[in-house]
């Protein structure tokens, strides 16, 4: 399966974000991008050229970025507040909580170059806390699309729903997880990418693809795996989780986030509180400032790759 997927054309989810926004802006002058000197980083230069009146620059000022976005959204604008996820969800967290979520201003908070996308620029530029921080805030949907299709769908959906959304993605080209057959994308509904009875692997964002690659390795060892792209971390698709968890022998979650407070703990919490107890392991970034390296090197270092995931699965099933 993985081999077939590799042949499909793909690009960075960040590029897809920009393209989708341009497409939406063609017919909707209420689409507004707000940037904090992040027009280039957000691949929004073409958007700004095409729609100069629909891009607002606030300078390197993330708190203001989110507050301004909230004001615009309160006047009916479909706002995409775009800034590196690391700054947006830490420095401007209070603005996300109060001005967006609590005040119910339907801003789309777009965390670009999320997780460890910035690689060797270091921990100031990594966002490994954002799921945890935002999961604990009421009234904001938390989404990490895995591939180009999910990204385009998520952006379009976010533009057209009247509620706060946080979307985060990276800048590495992401292969399509599967060919799409008129599937419907919804927030809060996970996608089953591969099916197998032995182990359930749940990923989100850029970790779903390595999970999918692990399927082949596991298959060779006689282990059949189900892979889910749980693109929405909150609200979690608990119905899908419960159904798949009940029939498998072990569960592994994979995320580009701290092992604390993210997708894995969200799943574990639900399962434990509903009496579904299976061998369970969270793969993610441990509680440390990461090793220096590119995103790929950091992933490899912490076993967020097909080999690492396969090993965790094998150990759980022993």
């Amino acid at each position, binding site marked *: 399966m993985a081999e077939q997927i590799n042949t499909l054309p793909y690009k960075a989810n960040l590029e897809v974000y920009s393209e989708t926004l341009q497409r939406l802006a063609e017919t909707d002058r209420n689409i507004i991008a707000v940037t*904090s*000197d*992040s027009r280039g*980083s957000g691949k929004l230069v073409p958007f700004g050229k095409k729609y100069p009146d629909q891009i607002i*620059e606030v*300078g*390197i*000022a993330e*708190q*203001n970025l989110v507050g301004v976005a909230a004001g615009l959204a309160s006047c009916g604008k479909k706002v995409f507040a775009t800034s590196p996820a690391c700054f947006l969800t830490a420095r401007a967290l209070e603005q996300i909580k109060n001005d967006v979520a609590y005040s119910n201003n339907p801003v789309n908070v777009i965390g670009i170059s999320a997780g460890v996308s910035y690689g060797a620029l270091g921990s100031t530029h990594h966002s490994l806390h954002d799921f945890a921080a935002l999961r604990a805030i009421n009234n904001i949907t938390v989404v990490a699309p895995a591939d180009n299709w999910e990204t385009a769908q998520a952006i379009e959906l976010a533009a057209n729903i009247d509620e706060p959304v946080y979307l985060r993605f990276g800048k590495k080209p992401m292969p399509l997880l599967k060919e799409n057959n008129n599937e419907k994308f919804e927030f809060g509904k996970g996608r089953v990418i591969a099916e197998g009875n032995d182990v359930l692997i749940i990923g989100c964002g850029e970790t779903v693809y390595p999970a999918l690659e692990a399927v082949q390795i596991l298959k060779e060892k006689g282990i059949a795996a189900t892979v889910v792209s749980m693109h929405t971390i909150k609200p979690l698709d608990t119905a899908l989780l419960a159904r798949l968890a009940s029939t498998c022998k072990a569960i592994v979650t994979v995320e580009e986030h701290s092992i604390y407070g993210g997708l894995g703990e969200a799943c574990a919490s639900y399962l434990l509180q509903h009496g579904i107890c299976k061998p369970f392991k969270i793969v993610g970034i441990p509680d440390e400032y990461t090793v220096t390296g590119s995103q790929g090197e950091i992933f490899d270092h912490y076993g967020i790759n097909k080999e690492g995931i396969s090993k965790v699965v094998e150990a759980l099933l022993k």
Partner: protein
Amino acid sequence: MNGDSKLVYSLHGDGELNEGQIWEAVMFAAHHKVDNLISTVDWNGQQIDGPTDKVLNMGNLHEKFEAFGWHVLEMNGNDMDDVIAGLDKAKAASGKGKPVAIMMHTAMGKGVDFMEGTHEWHGIAPNDEQLAKALEQLPETLGDY
């Protein structure tokens, strides 16, 4: 608080001055008469997305720091003699009840013609060919260090 006489230096980008946190600290330093602090601003007029006045016009930085209670100096941040003289002036101005700010007029990418005065080179490294071309323009750096 500890009564020592050391000076503290900080270096800021002009784009960085968009951040409100900076102004919180600027107000705080003036309020507490932190006069052992010399803050330098690398006023190159460029940030990652373009010229700072296009991205978010910062206006007159000199006036801003003065309005926020600082002693403000200016110098050419790419002229070594001026830098040394400027830092001497700043040291002399320290200890007088006000934090000291130096506005350093600089050119981003200084010394390499194709890098100067543009934001294009904010976060990228030259390739081998560009490096060779750049080093040709910077003879004094070869062999000296």
